[in-house]
C-alpha cells in the first residue's frame, strides 16, 4: 500500500517544501545523522526532558524519541490550516459557553441533550456560569492528520489540558543548535514567542476585579506527573510560579499562594490538573492535588482558571462527530478543516456496521486519550477483536469507530536508515481577551515503528520539529 508522503507525495515526486531537506538527506552520510541523533539524545537527557509513562515502573523517566528530520509545511498550507484552527476553536468556545448557558445548541436539535448532559466531563456545577471574558478554552491542542495534499482532517480536539507544547519549543532549540546550516538555507517561522503569547493570553483573562498587577501561576499535580517536565519548563519560560495544590489556599473566596513573604493573591491559574482534582470540597474528596475552596473562588469570579472547568465535553469523541454541525451553527461558515467520517456506536445502524467491519476500523472510547483503550482493527489479532467486541456490546454509547486512516508519512531516521513513518500534527491555539494566536507549526508526532499508526508518546511514539517555511525560498546554496 502506498501512502501520501509529506516529502514525495503519493507518486514519488519531490514536493517543493522538502527540496532542501531532501538534498541534505541525499548528501549527508548516515554516520553524520547517527552522530547528530546521539548528540540530540544527550542534550535532551541533560536538560532533563523526560516523560513518565504510567504503568512502567523502571522507566519512571523516559525520553520521548526525537527524530532529526523535520516535518515541513509551506506557508500557504499553514495559512489555510491556521484559518481552519481559529474557526474551529472559536466554535468550540461558543459551544461550551452555550452548553453551560442558554443551551440553544440543544434546543435547535444540533446536538442531542443526552450526549452532553450524561457526559462524564459535563460539570453541572458550571451551569449558568459565565467564564471571565467569555473564554473557556484558552489553550487548545487540535490533532490534525492528512491523507493527501488537499485536505487536513481533525482527528480529535483537546480542550482540557493539552500537553506537548514544550516539545515543540525544545525540539526547535535542539534542532537550531545541532543543525544551524539547515536554518541558514530555510526560512523557518519561529515558535519561541509562544510562551510570551501564552503569558499575555493568561493575563488578559484575569477577573475584572483583579488588582492592576495580575499574578498568574501554573498549577501542577507535582513532579510524579507524566508531564511535569513540561509544567516546570512552561512556568520557567512564562516567569510564573509553579505551584502545587498545597502552595495555594483560599480565604474569603480569594486564592492566595504561600510565599516567603506571606500570602500573595493569585488571579489566574493555568491549571494542568483535571477538573475532578481541582477542589476536594466540590469534586473528588480524596484529591490531595487540589485546593479546598477553589471552586467557590472561581464561581464568585475572583480567579480565572485556564482552561475553564467543564471544557472536557469538547474532548469527547461522540461530540466530535457533531463538530461540523456545531461550527456551522455558531459561525455560520462551512468548516475549513474536515472531520474524519465517524460511526457513533450509540446509533443502531452504525453499531451494526461497526460490528461487521471491526477488522478494518479504529474503535475508540469516547472519553479515552493517550492511545489507551482503543482498537486498531487491521493490526489486531482475532482474539483482541473478539474481546473488544464484547466491550462495545456492553456499552455501545461509549464507543465511536473510524476508518483506518492512511495517515501521511514523513521520512524518519531509524535503525535501518531513513524510512517513511506515519505522522500527525498537534498545533496549539491560544484564545485570550486579546484575540487568538496559533504558533506556526505545532508538535509533529511520529510512530517510530514501521507501519504503526499509533503516534502517542505513551505508546512509544516520537516527535519531530515542525517547520512552516516560506513558499518561495532561495535555491540551495
Amino acid at each position: 500500500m502506498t501512502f501520501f508522503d509529506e516529502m514525495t507525495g503519493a507518486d514519488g515526486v519531490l514536493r517543493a517544501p522538502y527540496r532542501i531537506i531532501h538534498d541534505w538527506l541525499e548528501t549527508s552520510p548516515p554516520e553524520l545523522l547517527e552522530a547528530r541523533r546521539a548528540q540530540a539524545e544527550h542534550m535532551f537527557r541533560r536538560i532533563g526532558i523526560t516523560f513518565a509513562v504510567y504503568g512502567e515502573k523502571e522507566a519512571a523517566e523516559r525520553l520521548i524519541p526525537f527524530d532529526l528530520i523535520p516535518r515541513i509545511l509551506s506557508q500557504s498550507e499553514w495559512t489555510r490550516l491556521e484559518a481552519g484552527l481559529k474557526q474551529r476553536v472559536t466554535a468550540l468556545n461558543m459551544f461550551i459557553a452555550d452548553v453551560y448557558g442558554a443551551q440553544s445548541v440543544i434546543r435547535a436539535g444540533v446536538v442531542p441533550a443526552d450526549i452532553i448532559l450524561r457526559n462524564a466531563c459535563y460539570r453541572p456545577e458550571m451551569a449558568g456560569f459565565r467564564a471571565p471574558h467569555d473564554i473557556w478554552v484558552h489553550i487548545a491542542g487540535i490533532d490534525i492528520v492528512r491523507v493527501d495534499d488537499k485536505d487536513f482532517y481533525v482527528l480529535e480536539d483537546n480542550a482540557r489540558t493539552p500537553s506537548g507544547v514544550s516539545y515543540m519549543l525544545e525540539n526547535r532549540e535542539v534542532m537550531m543548535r545541532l543543525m544551524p546550516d539547515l536554518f541558514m538555507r530555510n526560512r523557518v517561522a519561529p515558535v519561541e514567542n509562544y510562551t510570551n503569547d501564552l503569558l499575555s493570553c493568561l493575563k488578559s483573562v484575569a477577573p475584572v476585579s483583579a488588582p492592576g498587577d495580575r499574578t498568574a501561576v501554573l498549577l501542577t499535580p507535582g513532579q510524579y506527573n507524566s508531564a511535569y517536565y513540561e509544567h516546570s519548563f512552561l512556568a520557567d519560560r512564562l516567569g510564573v510560579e509553579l505551584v502545587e495544590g498545597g502552595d495555594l489556599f483560599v480565604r474569603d473566596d480569594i486564592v492566595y499562594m504561600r510565599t516567603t513573604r506571606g500570602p500573595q493573591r493569585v488571579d489566574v491559574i493555568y491549571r494542568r490538573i483535571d477538573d475532578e482534582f481541582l477542589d476536594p470540597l466540590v469534586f473528588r474528596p480524596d484529591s490531595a492535588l487540589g485546593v479546598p475552596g477553589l471552586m467557590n473562588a472561581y464561581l464568585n469570579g475572583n480567579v480565572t482558571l485556564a482552561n475553564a472547568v467543564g471544557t472536557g465535553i469538547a474532548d469527547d469523541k461522540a461530540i466530535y462527530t457533531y463538530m461540523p454541525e456545531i461550527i456551522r451553527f455558531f459561525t455560520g461558515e462551512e468548516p475549513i478543516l474536515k472531520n474524519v467520517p465517524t460511526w457513533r456506536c450509540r446509533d443502531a445502524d452504525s453499531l451494526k456496521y461497526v460490528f461487521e467491519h471491526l477488522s478494518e476500523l479504529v474503535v475508540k472510547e469516547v472519553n479515552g486519550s493517550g492511545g489507551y483503550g482503543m482498537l486498531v482493527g487491521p493490526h489486531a489479532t482475532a482474539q483482541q477483536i473478539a474481546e473488544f467486541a464484547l466491550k462495545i456490546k456492553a456499552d455501545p454509547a461509549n464507543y465511536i469507530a473510524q476508518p483506518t486512516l492512511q495517515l501521511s508519512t514523513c521520512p524518519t531516521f531509524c535503525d535501518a536508515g531513513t524510512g517513511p513513518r506515519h505522522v500527525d500534527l498537534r498545533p496549539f491555539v491560544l484564545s485570550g481577551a486579546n484575540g487568538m494566536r496559533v504558533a506556526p507549526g505545532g508538535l509533529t508526532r511520529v510512530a517510530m515503528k514501521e507501519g504503526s499508526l499509533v503516534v502517542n508518546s505513551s505508546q512509544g511514539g516520537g516527535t519531530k520539529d515542525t517547520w512552516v517555511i516560506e513558499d518561495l525560498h532561495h535555491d540551495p546554496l
Partner: protein
Amino acid sequence: MLARSAENLFWVARYIERADFSARMIDAALRLATLPKAYGGDGNEWVSPLAAVGNLDLFRKVHDKQDQNTVFNFLAFDRENPSSIRNCIANARRAARAVRTALTLEMWESINAAWLELSRIESERDPKNPMSREEVDRFLDFVKAISRDFDGAAYRTMLRDDAYWFNRIGLYAERADNTARILDVKYHLLLPQSEEIGGTLDYFQWTAILRSVSALTAYHWVYRESVKPWLVMDLLVQRSEMPRSLVSCYENIARYLDLIGQHYGQQGPSQRLARSVHATLVNSSREEIFQRGLHEFVTDFISSNNRLSGMLAEQYFPS
C-alpha cells in the same frame, strides 16, 4: 518567592553538602585503615564516619560486622540509609526537580548529570563484589566534584536574591552541622591533655580530622606549627578564615539571613538566633570552651543549629 521553592532550594544545597561530607569521611577512614596498629590504626576506623553522619545505630541494627566493604556500601549506596551518598543525590535531584524553575540551567544540569552518572555506577556495580580501591577513589572524587560543580554553578549563575540566599543558608547550615559532628565524634582526641596521653600516636587521628574537612594544608598556613589538638579545635571552631569552621559558617548564615530580612523589610527569630550563635562562637575563649567541656559546647551548637532550621521553616516555609 513560593515558600516551597525556598524550602527546596535550602534542601538541595544541604543534600549536596552532605554527600560531599560523607565522601570526605570515607576518604579519611580509608587512609586511617591503611595504618599499622602502632600508628593509630586500631581496626575501628569505620566507626567514626558512621557516627559522624549520625547512622551508627541504624548500621548496627542491620549489620553485625564493620568491615570496610560493608560500611562503604552502607555509606555510599544503601537505599535504606537515609543519608547514604546515593540517597543524598537522589533527594537533591528530587528537590531540584521540584524547584526546577528557581534553579539556573547550570545548577540543574550539574545535579541531573550527577544523578545520571550515579545511576550508571549503581547499575554497573555488583554489591557482592567489593569495588577496587581505584574504583572507590574514582567514586569519591566524582562525589566531591559534584559539590564543586553545583556550588560553582550557583555562585557563577544565580541572581543574588532570596533564592540564592536560601540556597546558601542550606549549604552553611549543613556544613556547620558536619563540622560539629566530626568534633563531637573526635572531641576526646582534641582535649588539651591528650597531648601527653596520645603524643605522636594521635597525630594520624588529628590529621585525619583535618583531611576530612580538607584543612590539612590550611592548618599549616594558618599556624605554621606542627599539628596540635587544641589548634585543630581552634581551626574548626573559631577561625573565620577557615571555610568549614563553625564561625565561618555562621558568619555566612547570619549575613544571608540579614540580606533576606532587609529584602523583605522584616527581621525575625531566625535572624536573632543566627546572630546569637555567631556571637557565642566569636566571644568564647579557647579556655572557656575547654573548661565548659568541648563535648557540651559542640552538643549545644548542634542543637542550636537544628533549632535554626526549625525556625527558618516556621518563618519562611509555612505549609
